[in-house]
């Protein structure tokens, strides 16, 4: 009995000692050493100035960890590579700053973003300057306000900051100017005598020729829904000549019965029925659709200008890579939209968390990223489409033909469509249209039924 009690006492003392030692070691040791050093130094030098300098140096060397939450999981190609290059450069220039990156695909990113919004956001985050994403985020107050004056010399394209503002206050910065384009394989076109279509009907006629040649006319990421919603926006733009006001009214009133929406939906459905897209397009994802094009199985690929880095991606067979070119949605017969009325908008960007414990450093890093010779320049050099800042001075003369085509498209544009339809309403509308658009194009639901359902989702 005595022995047992003795052992218990010994164990209790050991445990308590371990706990106390554990508590003490972390806090006491690091603070004691600098204090002693500072005191000795101050005593040696005896001047107040020297002591102040020492303090400043100590502060300057204070370690800061920034967490970047990104929607660019591929860190070796395209935009993800550009983002990582800037992060590495910033860390090299600021040795006391450590930047950790968590990167997820878009849908997973948006889901986790919401979880973070409830439980503490990372310091710097990817955002989208579109109502479907930003309205709820800004209402929740999770993003820090930025000083508009800081960006006076950053050469942002006029109007590009508007999507990131609420009540005149700025909460984020745009990364790209996105343009909806039709990538095509020029060699394939030349070999078969196919010409770039001038009208939508010509596109459909060409689709049947391409199918007859045993190829897929256009690879479409229909599984995700949003590329088809952009396709629809593109058509509305060609039919109506503009989309911003028409879509804003439709979303506000929850009424999509206007003739331009009906015609655009019918045209899209006609395209699907005519076999413009690959079989099973409505269930195939981004990667699968893109692979059909980059492997030479599809003659065209409908996507945004951010994929212009395909021309530099060595994973793509050279025969395809060097022959990728673009054109924009052809005009619709009888439509008000002309050749150079294009579907373009400022979408993705970055913001700083309102609750960041290192907000000052996070904003400093954000501003560093957006210095015109960083995101814009590196993006251009790596063929990542067009940024939301003036890139003209970074032309090297070594641009790919694909890059130059996109620049020409934007320079020649007579109007820009603005945010695509799916991103113009609340999240419930976005989720609804991206799912229902699959049903209406594959014939499961009617055009009127589709327009009715998406209208209701706005309310």
């Amino acid at each position, binding site marked *: 009995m005595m022995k047992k009690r003795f052992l218990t006492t010994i164990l209790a003392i050991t445990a308590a000692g371990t706990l106390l030692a554990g508590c003490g070691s972390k806090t006491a040791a690091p603070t004691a050493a600098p204090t002693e050093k500072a005191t000795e130094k101050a005593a040696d030098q005896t001047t107040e100035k020297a002591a102040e300098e020492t303090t400043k140096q100590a502060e300057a060397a204070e370690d800061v960890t920034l967490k970047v939450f990104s929607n660019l999981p591929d860190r070796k190609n395209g935009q993800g590579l550009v983002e990582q290059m800037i992060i590495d450069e910033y860390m090299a220039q600021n040795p006391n700053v450590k930047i950790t990156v968590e990167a997820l695909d878009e849908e997973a990113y948006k889901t986790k973003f919401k979880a973070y919004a409830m439980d503490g956001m990372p310091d710097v985050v990817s955002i989208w300057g579109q109502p479907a994403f930003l309205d709820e985020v800004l*209402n929740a107050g999770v993003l820090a306000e930025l000083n508009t004056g800081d960006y006076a010399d950053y050469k942002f394209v006029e109007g590009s900051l508007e999507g990131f503002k609420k009540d005149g206050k700025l909460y984020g910065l745009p990364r790209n100017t996105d343009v909806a384009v039709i990538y095509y394989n020029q060699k394939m076109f030349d070999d078969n005598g196919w010409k770039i279509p001038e009208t939508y009907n010509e596109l459909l006629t060409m689709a049947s020729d391409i199918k007859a040649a045993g190829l897929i006319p256009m690879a479409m990421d229909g599984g995700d829904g949003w590329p088809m919603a952009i396709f629809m926006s593109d058509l509305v733009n060609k039919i109506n000549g503009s989309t911003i006001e028409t879509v804003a009214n439709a979303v506000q009133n929850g009424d999509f019965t206007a003739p331009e929406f009906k015609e655009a939906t019918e045209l899209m459905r006609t395209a699907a029925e005519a076999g413009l897209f690959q079989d*099973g397009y409505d269930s195939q994802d981004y990667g699968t659709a893109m692979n059909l094009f980059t492997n030479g199985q599809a003659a065209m690929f409908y996507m945004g200008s951010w994929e212009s880095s395909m021309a530099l991606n060595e994973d793509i067979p050279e025969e395809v890579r060097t022959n990728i070119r673009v054109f924009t949605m052809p005009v619709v017969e009888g439509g008000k939209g002309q050749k150079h009325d294009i579907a373009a908008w400022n979408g993705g960007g970055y913001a700083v968390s309102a609750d960041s414990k290192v907000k000052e450093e996070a904003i400093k890093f954000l501003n560093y990223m957006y210095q015109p010779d960083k995101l814009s320049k590196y993006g251009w050099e790596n063929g990542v489409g067009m940024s939301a800042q003036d890139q003209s001075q970074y032309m090297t003369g070594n641009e790919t033909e694909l890059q130059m085509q996109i620049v020409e498209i934007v320079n020649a544009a007579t109007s820009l469509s603005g945010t695509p339809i799916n991103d113009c309403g609340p*999240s419930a509308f976005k989720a609804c249209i991206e799912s229902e658009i699959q*049903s209406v194009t594959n014939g499961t639901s009617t055009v009127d039924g589709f327009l009715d359902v998406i209208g209701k989702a706005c309310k």
Partner: protein
Amino acid sequence: MKKLYSNKLVIASLILPGILVFVFAILAPICLSIYYGFTDYSGMGTATVIGFENYSKLMQDKIFWKSLWHSALLAIGFICIQHPLAMIVAAVLDKLQGKAEGFFRCVYFIPNVISVAVIAYLWKFIYNPDFGLLNNVLKALGYTGKINWFDSKIAIWSVLVVLIWHGFGWGMLIYYTGIKNIDPVLYEAAAIDGANNRQTFISVTLPQMKSVIQVNVTMAIISALKQMETVYLLTNGGPGNSTQFTANYLYQQAFKAFKYGYGNAISVVFILICIAVTILLNIIFSEKGKAV
């Protein structure tokens, strides 16, 4: 030792971890779900109580009922296709003996060892109309057409095949274990009585497996109801909700449509359905038990 176990402090310290896990990991989330189900919470910002509005919308939500029907279809598929097959395979494996028994047991269980993400992408490629294995096999057999296995008219059946195939190993393993536990004397007696394989299976194996069948069927129905990850990765409920399942729809509403309150209302109804089904199954099995 007896004195130690009668000490209330010791008893409390032993059950406390379990109680804490239950309260914080199960009870509290359920209570929170019930609360949020009565709000218009978007997942961010503040929540406003809106009474039964979410529930009244849910009753009229065609996609919810469609997704519930798909869950029921899967449960039927599990019970009518997967489990009879699993039981037959388990009985055949039991008869195989030797190395072949171990080999095939592993082969049938492999799908359960592979990650759900891999399974989903594997089947995406198998089903692909342009370069998928299935269409290529059909082509090799002389079929000239191209089947879109995820066409909205047949997509649900394609998804059910994957889910039934994926869960087959577990069902088979549980039945196999059940068969192994049957007293061999019963088989010897059946053999002496001149029973053939079919008669032995129906008169000896099946009755002896009653409790295993009960457990397996209950688990199958619950897993059908809460099916999420494979569907999410394979089709995400598409095209156009044609393969939507309740748990996936709940997730989409809460985290994609930013209707967290509505998503929680779905989860509450979902929990009630799961509880009701479990009670119903218990009643069915207990009545059958009494009858036997």
